[in-house]
């Protein structure tokens, strides 16, 4: 396993080489011993109940020592060895290729003319393609196609606005600049119904699309860009901000996009109050909520 001795090596040099290998062997031995100890310690830590930091460190020491030991072994004791191989070029055998093509032509039916064989091959390819198409269809079983889901939410005329825990809300509960997330009563787990109710400051004029109760407005909480909840409200400037891609929507201006990548305003939920003074929806959202999709404007479909 030792390096080949070059011609003219003196006994002295050989001696030095041997000493070098001895030292390396000792160091590799120490490394492997450390790995053994660390491995046993790992067993101990596990049996004692486990401790993540200690486990990671011991594993590091054990594996690292093995790596060091092997490294010393291969670098110093095995030493650098050089092999030179010939490399046949990939493209060096055109006559073999010819042979193969000839064999193919012959074996695939000599009697058939090129045209007939091509015709058969095309039919076979067509059969494969049509079968492939048929075999793709089971993927369709993985889910229902979109019907009206993307266009509708559980909001309906007269449905109360409630908090996540189901508490209905009165207009007086909301003070200016306050923001709460509300759901339709009875559908507090409907992700597409999440709505943000914002208390407006009476001194600021508003431009809204739909009817609302005095001094508050309700918008869909789902960003029209990539669907994150529009979770932050900067009351000072009246902006709802989506923390994912930083689209901002002007609360006093019908939630129109003020900056960021969103392409359309947050839909506004028309709200009013019922006989008992609780906030209710006057209808479902007039436009689809959530991220834009291709037939969004074909609402009547």
């Amino acid at each position, binding site marked *: 396993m030792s390096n080949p001795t070059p011609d003219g090596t003196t006994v002295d040099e050989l001696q030095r080489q041997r000493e070098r290998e001895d030292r390396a062997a000792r160091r590799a031995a120490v490394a492997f011993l450390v790995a053994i100890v660390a491995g046993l310690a790992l067993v101990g830590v596990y049996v004692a109940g486990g401790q993540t930091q200690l486990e990671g460190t011991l594993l590091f020491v054990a594996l690292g020592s093995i790596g060091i030991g*092997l490294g010393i072994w291969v670098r110093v004791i095995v030493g650098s060895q050089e092999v030179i191989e010939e490399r046949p070029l*990939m493209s060096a055998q055109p006559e073999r290729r010819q042979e193969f093509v000839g064999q193919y032509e012959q074996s695939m039916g000599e009697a058939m003319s090129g045209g007939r064989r091509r015709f058969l091959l095309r039919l076979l390819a067509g059969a494969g393609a049509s079968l492939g198409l048929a075999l793709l269809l089971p993927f369709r079983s993985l889910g229902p196609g979109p019907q009206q889901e993307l266009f509708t939410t559980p909001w309906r005329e007269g449905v109360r606005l409630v908090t996540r825990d189901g508490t209905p809300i009165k207009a007086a509960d909301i003070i200016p600049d306050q923001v709460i997330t509300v759901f339709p009563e009875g559908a507090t787990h409907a992700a597409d119904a999440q709505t943000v109710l914002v208390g407006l400051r009476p001194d600021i004029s508003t431009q809204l699309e739909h009817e609302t109760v005095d001094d508050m407005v309700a918008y869909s909480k789902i960003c029209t860009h990539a669907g994150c909840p529009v979770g932050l409200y900067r009351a000072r400037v009246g902006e709802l901000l989506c923390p994912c891609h930083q689209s901002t929507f002007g609360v006093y201006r019908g939630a129109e996009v003020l900056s960021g990548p969103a*392409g359309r305003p947050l839909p506004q939920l028309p709200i009013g109050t019922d006989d008992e003074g609780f906030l209710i929806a006057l209808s479902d959202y007039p436009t689809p909520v959530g991220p834009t999709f291709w037939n969004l404007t074909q609402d009547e479909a």
Partner: protein
Amino acid sequence: MSATSDRPREPAHASDDDNVRDGPVERLARWTDDRLRLAESSKKYLRKAFPAHWSFLIGEVALFSLVILILTGVFLTLFYVPSSRQVVYDGPYAPLAGQTISVAYDSVLELSFEVRAGLLMRQIHHWAALIFVAAIVVHMLRVFFTGAFRKPRELNWVIGVALLLLAFGAGFTGYSLPDDLLSGTGLRIGYSALLSIPFVGPLIGFIGIGGEFPGEDVLGRLHILHVMVLPAGLIGLVTAHMVILIRQRHTQKPSRKATNTNVVGEPLFPNQTMTSASLFAFTAAITALLGGLFEINPVWIYGPYEPFQVFAPAQPDWYMGWLEGLLRLWPAWEFTIFGVTIASAFIPGVVIPGLLFAIVFAWPWIEVRFITHDVGEHHLLQRPRDVPMRTAAGVAGITFLLVIFVAGSNDVIAADVATGLQTITNILRAAAILLPPLTGWIAYRIASGLETGPAVGGRPAAGSPQ
């Protein structure tokens, strides 16, 4: 291509228990050779030449990370439960006590806090995933800038890019599984990008998760993708990658000895084998240290996923950052033509990533067609200066990706330097358009300057015969 013998084999006259004085290596060799007749071909394969250069080991780091991922992943999947059924948390992590959470999230908490060595395994798995993708990317850059993808290696380039895509997929499905607030948000964004595809987007999205977001089936499907489909693809393609590598043999740097028709290197055994074993131990050691000491993806802090909750700032794993940045930088262009609405997330979320990957896939052919017009067979590596246009294209591409990667943290930057978010975004938009041509041009100038300069270090100048 098995080696053939021109003389008949001697009958096996020695039984296994003959020659008790033989050492263990001899006995093992005889045992296997008597049954598989390996010694003959071993002689040839064990001395197969592996060109020795540190940069050839980066791909091995990726391979070893994959091994670590599979080993730790098998452990994790024994504890993970892909169910969105709601339960009340009653484990030891006090801040979540009594909260209603999904069974999936609960199983990850249990794995992290109650299963011995569970947290270590989980964190090693996540760190190894980050290293896996990083090693693939660096390996790919090495192959790109040294022209190692040229004929006859186009196929392995394409397989390599496909492996990168699978790694993205494995990473994304993996960190979506814990059903925590961060992963659910990532899933929501991915689903929205799908939804934006004209005509088929809603259909694909609905089929993909079994209905309207968030759906009941999504965790089970992600789980199967993550533990079965994607690993099968990864293992299959890695195998193909290596079989082709062995078939074509390694590239090498040109030298006095190394030419286009030979391979100069260290023998597969013992040198390369031991070096690789050592490298595997080091890779595993680093992931163990990271997994043991450095917290990653602490899902208990994020809380369970609720579709109406979100936290800021939220960043995905590093290799998704460029996609996130594209979504943030792209302006709010949304328009309707012939009744088809093009969502503002469609172009940055689907079209541009698709185009980028198409270019990367096709690069070996693009280069031959438009830059080098070289259809020869190459086994010698180039230096970046040897093909200035390629180097320029690579540098420009990296610059673009880095800018949009930084843009994935535009909110954090804005908070840090106390500048308006809009200003930061506009600066990054300008940088994404202007910087790539600039850095590409600089790279081109440097490369062509070096190319025409004197040969360095005894290497022949580009274009001169080897």
